């Protein structure tokens, strides 16, 4: 609500914002109107009281800057982690949704048959069967070899002898290394 002219004059007079003309007009008004003069006196008292009180400064708590900066650093740490956490959660949600939706969609739309008939699927199937066959052959060969070694005494003796010779050779190499190190230190 806007002020009337008198209230505006009083306000501006208190804040030392009157022009010379306004000042003269205001002085005349104060001498003519006792009600305005009364209001002016009361407001002047309040104005003086507030101006005096405004000189007082209340001391700050100790280490105030430190406590504010601690909060700033906490905020920064949270701000740095926040996008990462949101990103990971979003990604996990998308993966989970796709994981559930993919097979359901494939079967619901009968897409599995054309998918199986596609050339790439044939190639994948062929490669997978070849790989499985290769692994099977390897497994049988390994089993046959173990069977032969364990059931033929000469073969077992040869394998054991080879292992003993290999361990002696490794031992000799280690001794040689240690001797060379000791000589260098000396």
């Amino acid at each position, binding site marked *: 609500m806007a002020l009337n002219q008198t209230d505006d004059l009083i306000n501006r007079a208190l804040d030392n914002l009157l022009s010379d003309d306004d000042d003269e007009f205001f002085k005349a008004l104060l001498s003519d109107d006792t009600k305005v003069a009364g209001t002016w006196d009361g407001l002047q008292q309040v104005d003086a009281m507030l101006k005096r009180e405004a000189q007082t400064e209340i001391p700050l708590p100790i280490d105030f*800057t430190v406590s504010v*900066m601690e909060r700033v650093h906490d905020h920064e740490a949270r701000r740095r982690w926040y996008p990462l956490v949101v990103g990971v959660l979003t990604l996990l949600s998308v993966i989970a949704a796709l994981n559930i939706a993919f097979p359901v969609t494939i079967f619901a739309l009968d897409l599995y048959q054309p998918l199986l008939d596609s050339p790439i699927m044939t190639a994948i199937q062929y490669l997978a069967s070849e790989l499985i066959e290769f692994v099977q052959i390897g497994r049988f060969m390994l089993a046959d070899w173990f069977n032969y070694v364990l059931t033929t005494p000469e073969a077992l003796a040869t394998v054991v002898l080879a292992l003993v010779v290999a361990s002696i050779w490794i031992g000799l190499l280690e001794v040689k290394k240690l001797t060379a190190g000791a000589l260098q230190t000396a």
Partner: protein
Amino acid sequence: MNEDQELVARVLEGDPDSFAGLVERYQSAVYNLAYRMLNESRAAEDATQEAFMRAYQHLSRYDMNRSFKTWLLSITSNYCIDRLRKRRLTWLSIDEPLAPHPSLVSSEVGPEQAAVRSEKQAAIQSLLDELAPDYRAAVVLRYWYDMSYADIAEALDTTESAIKSRLFRARQQLAEKAQSKSGHEMVLAMERA
């Protein structure tokens, strides 16, 4: 670019420690405004921290053509006005003014003078407490920070005309209360001081 704006620019470029310079510079002004508004040291401290945090979080919105101090005091006064409105809702039945803050007693004066001074300050603070939050903010910004009508209007997001009106009504209410019995005693105490 003044020193405030340089510090703001550094914070925006990714150096949060530069914000400490702004806190050092304006903590007293912000704390005093919060204290005058809330009349409670703990609440004023919380409000000051909150005001600085809000300023930090919204620093990118700060208009470099404006005074940083005015912007910061604007955040503080608006936060305090909100708190006072909430407090009014909560404390609707409590009429007693709060006890004066211990730090109002200056260590530079004798105990008797300090007591009179503390009494006077508490009385003025209790008068301010009776003003509506919007009026109180206008008075504090005008008297304690010597802000122009235009700056107060900007800080409180209103028009100059509204600020003139608030200031006049606030002064009028303070004068009426000061002229009442307790107010009169307070004026006398002030005169003695």
